[in-house]
């Protein structure tokens, strides 16, 4: 039950404090009652039991992914 999943905000519904998110093709509406900062279309968020829990820091995620890419490239260079 605790496997919160990354999703992307596709529509804002400020009148009901909710947003529609896309989770790899599945769209649903979730509550923003636990979010202080406003969300924008395109933001990445974690969803847990119908609520946005937080905004995913896209820069931090991209930084990690770049680091992993570097690790793999080094490994492949060493194997070559």
């Amino acid at each position, binding site marked *: 039950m605790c496997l919160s999943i*990354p*999703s992307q905000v596709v529509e804002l519904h400020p009148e009901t404090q909710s947003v529609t998110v896309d989770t790899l093709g599945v769209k649903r509406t979730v509550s923003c*009652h636990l979010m202080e900062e406003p969300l924008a279309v395109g933001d990445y968020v974690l969803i847990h039991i*119908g*609520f946005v829990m937080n905004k*995913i820091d896209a820069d931090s995620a*991209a930084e*990690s*992914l770049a680091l992993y890419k570097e690790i793999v490239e080094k490994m492949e260079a060493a194997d070559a």
Partner: protein
Amino acid sequence: MPELQLKQLYDGFRDPRTVAELASQIKQLAAKLEEPVNVMEVCGGHTHTIMKYGLLQLLPDNIEFIHGPGCPVCIMPKERIDQAAALAQIPDVILVTLGDMIRVPGSEGSLAQFRAKGCDIRPIYMPLDALKIAQENPDKTVVYFAIGFETSTPMTAVLLEQAEKLGINNLLFHINHVLVPPAIDAVMADPETRVNAFIGPSHVSVITGSQIYQPTVDNYHTPVVVSGFEPVDVMQSILSIVKQKVEGRCELENQYERAVSYKGNEAAQQKVNQYFTVRPSFRWRGLGPIPNSALMLKPEYRHRDAELKYGERLPVKEIDDHKACQCGDILRGKAKPQDCKVFGRGCTPKPR
């Protein structure tokens, strides 16, 4: 930097080549370890990742996982499920709970079995669905059997807040929200515990921030690395733990920076503090009673507390774990699940 795609948030952290390279770095470094590292992944979500991706099999023999007490369904003692079943048997009560909960056996059967006998028990995916059920059934009392660690408590708080705001008075709560740090303390209180490092939960930490594990680091001199749920996250966290051990450090680290901050979601914490207070004691399956390890509603929300309202009808008898049950030893790393005589036989969730 090209724009990040949602897919990369999944695939990028499941990349087999990255996992393989991290495994190779861990293996090299672990050769320098003076003693084995017994890592407790507190959260069941991490256990799931470790099993699903076969991570243990990628690690050297001197690194072991000890699966911790961080699943709110698994740690629920039978008497709480018995109380839920008793509530569901009261005429005009609709019991709602998160889907995972209904297959776990109490002493008289699981909620799924009570539902089969005709009780109105409704699994829901989102706590706010309980509002709608209450609105649609004004002549019934809807009881939300609330479960979950720090991750799920704020959602119950919002449900209560909305019920108050909208004047939906036929919605009550049976609160079983539990806390991670006291469970860690219960595991570490045993002088024979073999746990000497922790992977911190992912989404508990999103809410609480990584700050809640600082006392674990200070009190038990163990590394704690807060980790994401994907296999690359877990392997990177293991590498950090092994590095700390080899360098003789015990620190709080946060591998899951893309989602977890030191302070966490303060708006969510504020909602929890508004409606809940610490319960003096709560019994855990496998670990027994742990002081201050759960939450209850604050006195000003007593009118919403199903435990108080139906107190006379709820069984209070504490049901001990089966005498063959070794959950406590397993949680402390003193036994493996397969060592338990009832594992996979008597002790397995019943099919729906």
